[in-house]
């Protein structure tokens, strides 16, 4: 009597357990379609462009970018924050939805976690590259050294950043990887190829599916989940302190930590949605990632969009209410009006207004609508970071230092390169790792389906 069919089944089509294994592993066991090769080719070209840009950056210097004496951070930090934001989706999915007992996450969380790992790796590239002397990046490690009493500066948000990102990357990677152990073992057992057996065997770490394994697996998941839950909140809070701790108008705001975390989840979910629209189409997995799934993500997005709108208006309100002339200038004369109106209004329209269309069920159920709006949100979130990083620096305290900032093709190249890497990573993930957590999907196969008396 409790199994009322409110949300519809989580897995449609009355699957048997072996059918689930087979269908989920299908992309790995069959040759991918032409579209995969085309997409992979494009992503490789983008990645090559990125490698070229990185080579130029490292061999010639940051001077090949458009940043200058006043705007010390440009696209690279915009992109860093943007990727980190996207990298919030996986963990948020796994942990928050786990805590909230949202079982529908099972068919999505693997892909979301993979996305997280790849996005965080893309993100981590930027803080490294933006260093003038990347070859000395190890100075940021707090390790005992022979250079006298030199120690890192524990006051610096960049150091916190470094710790937070490293921790986040390690935890989300472990979480993702360890979650895959049973599936790797499944592949190992199913495959006939010797090489595959060796590789998946190595990564499967000798999983046999014994009760011992399952008990340890469960408890490890809980431990890592517990840590990751904190990290989801802390990482972007700390990234936000890069700005909030600064003295620059438009940066120096106590609102930033929650605003950044929510923004990050917003962009992460939007990216998950973009990805899922493709995955369910391309791999015919509509039975697993159902319309209900997409609907649920859209509902979350519309809710977060409201929070974002509130945050934007709060920022502007506080700038006005503080009476601080520098803040007022930044918000009213360099964002709402001025040289950077496109980015500001782009941010408002893409993040606060357009997602409101998700109030309509028709749009929530249309894959075109979902795709377009999710892409718009990602664009909007990019604008938001651009607003924060660049507009604040371009016109700060002394008008003699005011400049405008334009990226060079090298900066664009690095960004394109990370997009390429991201896409390539995702495509390889589809090809070599089960898209969904098979064992978990199996555990929810009956939820929402009619129970025979």
């Amino acid at each position, binding site marked *: 009597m409790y199994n009322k069919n409110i949300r519809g089944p989580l897995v449609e089509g009355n699957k048997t357990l072996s059918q689930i294994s087979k269908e989920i592993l299908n992309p790995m066991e069959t040759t991918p379609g032409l579209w995969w090769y085309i997409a992979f080719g494009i992503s490789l070209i983008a990645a090559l462009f990125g490698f070229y840009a990185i080579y130029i950056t490292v061999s*010639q*210097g*940051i*001077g090949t970018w*458009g*940043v*200058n*004496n*006043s*705007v*010390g*951070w440009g696209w690279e930090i915009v992109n860093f924050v943007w990727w980190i934001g996207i990298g919030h989706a996986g963990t948020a999915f796994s942990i928050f939805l786990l805590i909230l007992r949202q079982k529908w996450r099972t068919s999505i969380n693997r892909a979301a976690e993979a996305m997280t790992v790849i996005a965080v790796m893309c993100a981590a590239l930027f*803080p490294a590259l*933006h*260093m*003038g*002397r*990347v070859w*000395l*990046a190890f*100075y*940021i490690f707090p390790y005992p050294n022979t250079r006298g009493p*030199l*120690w*890192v*500066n524990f*006051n*610096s*948000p*960049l*150091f916190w950043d*470094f710790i937070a990102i490293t921790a986040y990357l390690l935890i989300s990677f472990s979480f993702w990887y360890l979650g895959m152990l049973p599936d790797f073992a499944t592949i*190992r057992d199913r495959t006939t190829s*010797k090489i595959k*057996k*060796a*590789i998946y*065997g*190595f990564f499967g*770490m*000798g999983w046999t599916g014994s009760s011992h394994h399952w008990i340890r697996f469960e408890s490890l998941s809980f431990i890592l989940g517990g840590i990751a839950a904190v990290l989801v909140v802390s990482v972007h809070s700390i990234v936000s302190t*890069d700005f909030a*701790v*600064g*003295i*620059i108008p438009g940066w120096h705001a106590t609102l930033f930590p929650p605003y950044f975390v929510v923004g990050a989840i917003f962009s992460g979910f939007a990216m998950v949605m973009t990805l899922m629209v493709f995955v369910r189409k391309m791999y015919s997995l509509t039975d697993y990632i159902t319309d209900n799934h997409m609907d649920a993500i859209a509902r979350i997005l519309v809710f977060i969009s409201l929070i974002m709108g509130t945050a934007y208006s709060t920022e502007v309100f506080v700038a006005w209410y503080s009476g601080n*002339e*520098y803040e007022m*200038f930044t918000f009213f004369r360099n964002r709402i009006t001025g040289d950077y109106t496109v980015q500001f209004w782009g941010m408002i329209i893409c993040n606060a207004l357009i997602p409101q269309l998700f109030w309509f069920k028709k749009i929530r159920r249309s894959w075109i609508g979902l795709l377009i709006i999710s892409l718009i949100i990602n664009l909007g979130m990019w604008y938001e970071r651009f607003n924060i990083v660049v507009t604040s*620096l371009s*016109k*700060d*305290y*002394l*008008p*003699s*230092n*005011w*400049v405008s900032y334009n990226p060079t093709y090298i900066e664009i190249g690095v960004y394109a390169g990370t997009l390429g890497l991201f896409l390539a990573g995702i495509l390889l993930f589809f090809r070599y790792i089960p898209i969904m957590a098979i064992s978990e999907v199996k555990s929810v196969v009956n939820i929402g389906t009619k129970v025979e008396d």
Partner: protein
Amino acid sequence: MKKYWKSVEEFHGITVGDNGISEEKHKEEFLELFENGLLRKTSSRRDFFKIFGFSLSSAALAASCKRPVQNAIPYVNHPPEITPGKSLYYATSFFDGHEYSGILVKTRDGRPVKIEGNALSSFNNEGTSARVQASVLSLYDDARLKLPTVDNLPVNWDTLDEQVIKDLSGINSEDGEIVLLTSTINSPSTIKLINEFGTRFKKFRWVQYDTVSYSAILEANLICFGKAAIPDYHFQNAGYVVSVNADFLGTWVSPVHFIPKYTSRRKPDSPGQEMLRHIHFESGMSLTGSNADKRIKIRPSEEKQLLTELYNRIAARQSGKEFQGSAGRYDVSEITESLISSKGKSIVLSGTNNVEIQLLINGINSLLGNYADCIDLNRNLNIASGIDSRVEELVNDLNEGKVKALLMYNVNPVYDYPGSGNFLAGLKNTVVTVNMACSLNETVGKAKYESPVHHYLESWNDAEIIPGQLSLAQPCINPLFDTRSFQESLLKWSGNSLSWHDYLMANWEKEFFQKSDLPDFRKFWEVCLGNGVFSYNISDSKPVSFNKEVLSASINSKVSVGTYGFEVILYESVALGTGLYANNPWLMELPDPVSRHCWDNVAAVSPADAEKLGIITGHLIKIGENLVIPAFIQPGQAEGTVSIALGYGHTNSGPVGDNIGVNVYPFVGLIGGTRVYGFTTGKLENTLKQSQLALTQVHHSMEGRPIVRETVLSRYRSNPSSGNELHEEYELKHRTLYPEVNYDGFHWGLAIDLNSCVGCNSCVIACQAENNIPVVGKAEVRNRRIMHWIKIDRYYSETPDNPKVYFQPLTCQHCDNAPCENVCPVSATNHSSEGLNQMTYNRCIGTKYCINNCPYKVRRFNWFRYTNNKAFDFNTVSDLGKMVLNPDVTVRERGVVEKCSFCVQRIQEKKLLAKLENRTLKDNEIKTACMQACPSGAIVFGNLKDRNSEVSKLFQNPRNYHLLEELHTLPSVGYLTKVWNDEEKKS
């Protein structure tokens, strides 16, 4: 061969590793890792670590690289005066034909690295101009001429001398005229030598040629007072100054001499002295106009009418009559009243090279009795002696074939003579031409003989800048190239066997030794060399009398005021001046103090004209028929006028200066025998093509922010902290959560008096020279990446039509609560126990977070490798150019952040000296490079912990404030409010 073995394995040919395992075994294990480990169904923790360790160590091996070896070679015979690591200072004089300074040259290990002002030289005290500061770089210029040539083929000196002597005597025997064309020469020994040289020939003429001429002043003074001289202007005695088109703080005559005198009277609080009020009439926006209390725009053609009216009004008032006659566009009655009430204590001057105008100026000044205290013709300035008509005469004679031999020294007429084509044509009519230049220029290669001269830092010389004020110049380095001083050549060619050094000494013994009270000449010579200067009293000649008759003619001559078209003014820029140093990258990259652009000359147009013609900054405009130049909208430019800087558009000056900007010397006109730096045209077109200008500041308003705080004298009198009320408010709000840092001993601070700073930019170049700051080039300046550690911000207020201008030197504020320090992840920037905000270059990884978080944006990033990088081939690529680097300051690597260090190397040097001498540091003993170069004394550095130090006193001054003090960054730099003099003089 006998075989030795130390183990059985070795005997059997099995090599054994240190730990006793055979390498074969090693190999096996290694392969096992791949073969076995990966193929096993399970993989162990050990496998994981093996793979991990292998990848890491192979990556580390692959990444290792080598550094090039550089050798330092010690002295074989150690010169006794040189202690490695210690600087030696030589007193010498700078005179390049346009500008003079008594200087000290800092040499390190035998090479000059920095120029300082000579405190014993009363002419400029310690102040130096940007060009003098930069002159040390010209010593190490690859574009210098390196050896003598005949017909552009290298020869040795003997060959050249032989041929020149033969040619000259040939001409002399045929009664041909020999002409020596030089820049202005104020060296008494050289003048004597030239005269002696001349007497050897039957027909000899010496013509002095000034690129930018003061001929009209010389001629007017000859007419009025019988003395062709540029008077000295004693601004320190003046209470009221009216200047017309004379940028005496920027380029006119000798700014480095005028600035200290002028600023000494611009202090609102100096006891017993009234603050000077300055009225300035001009067309373009000059440095002087920016500093004037009242600036009035005129067109150049209106000047004469204006001065005539002023003269007539003053004359009428003095004779008790009412002024009769037509009044001009500007009401000068108030100025007349003020001038009359400050009679004898005022200066009226004009920078226009027009005899009639200069006669009027002389008339006004003598009516006002200014020749007693304020304008000194007796102790005049020997800074320019060229008479334009004589140069014209020479060019005519050249073309008529009258001149058979032309010897040129330190002139570049092919570039800067208005009719250079004419000159070149005339040159072909000569039999012998000798060119004596130091560095590549357009005239080089046009003469038969090239006899390259030493740089002034390699030569002996003397100078008499003011009658009775002598100075010596001595070599501070062995000649770098196969060059010879000009005087040495003259001696050789006149058959004199004395060396120039001996000649100079002999002359001093004869002429000046008796004027000193020292017993023997050797001593006298040593003292003079040590001091660099020697002065003696000259008798005051009879009080000058003014010849009134000459005035009537010029007053009555018709005045035509331009009513149509555009009047173009050609002026010297503060950075490049006449263009002599166009190949000096420091000067090329020095932003113009007013327009804040560099690496180009532009046509400054008024905002009103720009609107009319649809011009925006950067548009290429066509003036007249063939002058195409980028436009620059200059607030304060008079409508209907266009100002263009001279000195650009070189074609043969070296890699830096060539093809930068447009040469406008060909547009210099000639009226009544004097050169006119301007022309009139009816045609000004906008070609609508864009040119990329290197602007270093693009926003000009303070946006109502309290950045430069100002007041006027009348309010200052009642309240010295007027305009600075915010300071007290913020001081009261001073709170901190953290324990306040207590500095014991030293707390370094810098006070900048915005009222004294005229914005001359010499601190910028002094800092560049001292701190090895790289030049980045036009493209990088355009990218807003100029590296200067100190820059002079310029703000405008009021209307763009005729704005008030503010200058604010901006450098690292060394905040005690520095926002940059706590954001650096690796603590590369930190606070010293003496209050310095210091950069540890070795530690910096270049996150640029500090740059972002600095509210003053004074930190600079090394965007590229600027040293040994062909893309930045300015002065840090060639071995020669690198000789200018100061060995006390690290050359920064690519990717690190740098900024003003308060010249920490100088602090350290003096601290160590005091310690060695077992004494405490004296106030003002440590001077930062900017402070030392500043001609106006606007910058004061010292210890804030010492309540009696000058800087502490300035910090207590009610005018003192800190920039952005509302942020509570607690800067160690203080600014003193700008006080304008708004009070007209009343009798």
